[in-house]
C-alpha cells in the first residue's frame, strides 16, 4: 500500500498512460466523493483526461474492480458507491503492446 492519505482525503493512483497524462503516480483528493462524480472531478483537474484515458480504463477501489458503466455505479448492496476517506482508488488503462 502507498502511504495513508491525510484526514478527509482518499488516495488516487494513476497507472500506465493515466500516469503519463497526469504526470504523477499518486495524489490525495477530498473524500467523501460519490463514485459517479469521480470522472468529472478528474476532468476538471486534467482537461482531456476523460476522452484520452478514463473512458476506456478500468477503475478499482481498494484493489477491487468497480463497474463504471452505469450513470450511478452501485455496490453489491445496490446503493450508490461513495469513495470514503482513506480509500485507494486507481485508474488502470489497458496496455496493448508486447
Amino acid at each position, binding site marked *: 500500500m502507498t502511504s495513508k492519505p491525510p484526514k478527509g482525503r482518499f488516495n488516487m493512483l494513476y*497507472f500506465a498512460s493515466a500516469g*503519463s497524462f497526469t*504526470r504523477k503516480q499518486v495524489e490525495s483528493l477530498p473524500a467523501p466523493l460519490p463514485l459517479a462524480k469521480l470522472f468529472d472531478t478528474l476532468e476538471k483537474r486534467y*482537461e*482531456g483526461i476523460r476522452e*484520452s484515458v478514463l473512458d476506456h480504463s478500468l477503475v478499482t477501489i481498494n*484493489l477491487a474492480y468497480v463497474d463504471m458503466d452505469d450513470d450511478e455505479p452501485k455496490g453489491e448492496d445496490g446503493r450508490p458507491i461513495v469513495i470514503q476517506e482513506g480509500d485507494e482508488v486507481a485508474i488502470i488503462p489497458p*496496455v496493448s*503492446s*508486447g
Partner: protein
Amino acid sequence: MEERTGPPSSQNGTTAVSSVRKRTSTEESRRGPSRPLTQAEFERYSRQMIVPGMGKEGQLRLINSRILIIGAGGLGCPAAQYVAGAGVGTIGIVDGDVVETSNLHRQVGHSTSRIGMKKVDSLITHLRHLNPLPRYIPYPFHINAQNAADIISPFDLVMDCTDNPATRYLISDVCVLVQKPLVSAASVQKSGQLIVLNCPPAPQGQLDGTTAPCYRCCFPKPPPPSSMVSCGEAGIMGPVVGMMGVAQAGEALKIISSALNIPSSTQPLDSEVVDRNLRQPYLLIYSYDLEAAIGPMSFRALKMAGRRKKCFACGENSTLSLEGIRSGTPNYEQFCSLPAPKHALSAEERITATEYQNLKERGLLPEHHLLVDTREKEHFSFGAIDGAVNFPFGKLLMTAAQVKRDKSNGGAEPQTQMILPNELALDTVDGNAPIFVVCRRGLDSQEAVEKLKEMGLDDGGKRKIMDIIGGMRAWKEEVDSTFPFI
C-alpha cells in the same frame, strides 16, 4: 514440412475441439492418459515434477496438452521458453514478422545470427535446442479474422502475446466462441499487465454468476489510437516485458497441470478443483520505475468481476459468431482505429521538411523564429534540428489545459509562464517570427499547433504557427538521411 501446412488434425478444426471436450467427460481423460514417463522425460522434468502439487500427473497433463502462443516477440519469447522447457507436448507459434536488430534487447528467443529470419522459425530453432521433445508448429503469418478460429480451435489454451488492441479483441472473441482459456499479457514502456480470461471456459451467453470474464468484459472500449503507444514508439524495457511473459507461462502451466481449464460443470463432485477455478480473476499489474527502487506500487493484484451481463462477446444477448467474424463483423480494425482527425490545419499552417530547410538555408526565416520539437526528451537527446527547443507533447498538453483554466479563473498568467520553456514565454511573442512545430511522425505537431494557438502564442492571428509535415521521419527522408531517427 507437414508441420508447416497446418495444425494437428486441423484439416477440420472441429475434430480437435470435440476430442478435447470428449476427454473432459471421463475421469481418466481429465487426468490425462496414464502411462509411465520415458527415461528422457523423467530426467528432463524431474526438478519440476517433485514440486508439491505437480507430480507425474501434472507432468503428463503438460505432455498431453497443446498450447498456442500468438506473437513471437517480447512476451512470446520468454513465455515460449518456459512452456517448452516444462514439456508441453504441442506448441504452436503464430507471427508474421521477421527478426530485427531492435528486437534483440528483449526478444530473448532470437539471436543476432538469425536477423532477417521469420520470428516463428527463429524462436522454434531456439526452443528445439532447449527441448527437442515437444512438437513445434510454426504459423509464419499474422492471425486475422479469417484464419483465427481455424488456428485456435485445435489447442487447449491460448497465450495472447500480441502487440495491438485489434488483435487482442479478435483473439478474445474467438476464444469465447470456441471455449478456450486465454492467458493474456501486455507490456509497454514501464508497465505490464497479466490476466487469465475465460477460464474455465463457458458457453457464450451463460451467466450464472460463476463464469469467468473475457477481455471485453474487462476492457469494453478500446483506447483511442492517439493514446496508443507501441513499443516502437514509446519504448520498452526488456525485463518488464520479460517478467510479464514469464509470468504468463507460469499461469499457462498452472492451468494445464492442475486441469483448471476443465469447466467446473463437468466435475461437480470434485469441490477442490471447483474452488481453484478462476471465475473471479485478478489482474496483475507491474509498474517499473526507472527513477525509484522497487516500491509498494511495483506489483498489484486487482480483483476483477466475472462475466459482464452486457458483454458484446460473451454476454446475455451477444450475437457474435464465428461466421460473422470470418465475414468481417465486427470490424476489428475500425473498432480500434482513428476517429476522423479533429485537427484540420489549413494549408498555410503546414510546411514540408524540405520547404522549411529551403527557407532556412536561403536566410528567409526571421531571426527570432522558433522551432518547437514536441518529442519526449529521450528522443530529443539523440539529435534534433539545429536550434530546436524541446517541449514534450504531454507537457505541452498539460500546460495548455492549465492556461485555459487560468484564463477562465480570471487570468493567473505568471504561474503559467513558469512552466513554459523560456523561448516560448508569452511576453517574448514577436509578431514577425513564426513558430514551427515538429514531432516524431507529424501527428502530435498538428495538435500542438492548435494548442499553442489556444494559448495565445499566435498573438491573435498575427504570428504564424506551422506544423512540419511528417515530423522528424520526413526530415530524415527528405533532408538529412544521417539523422538518428528512433
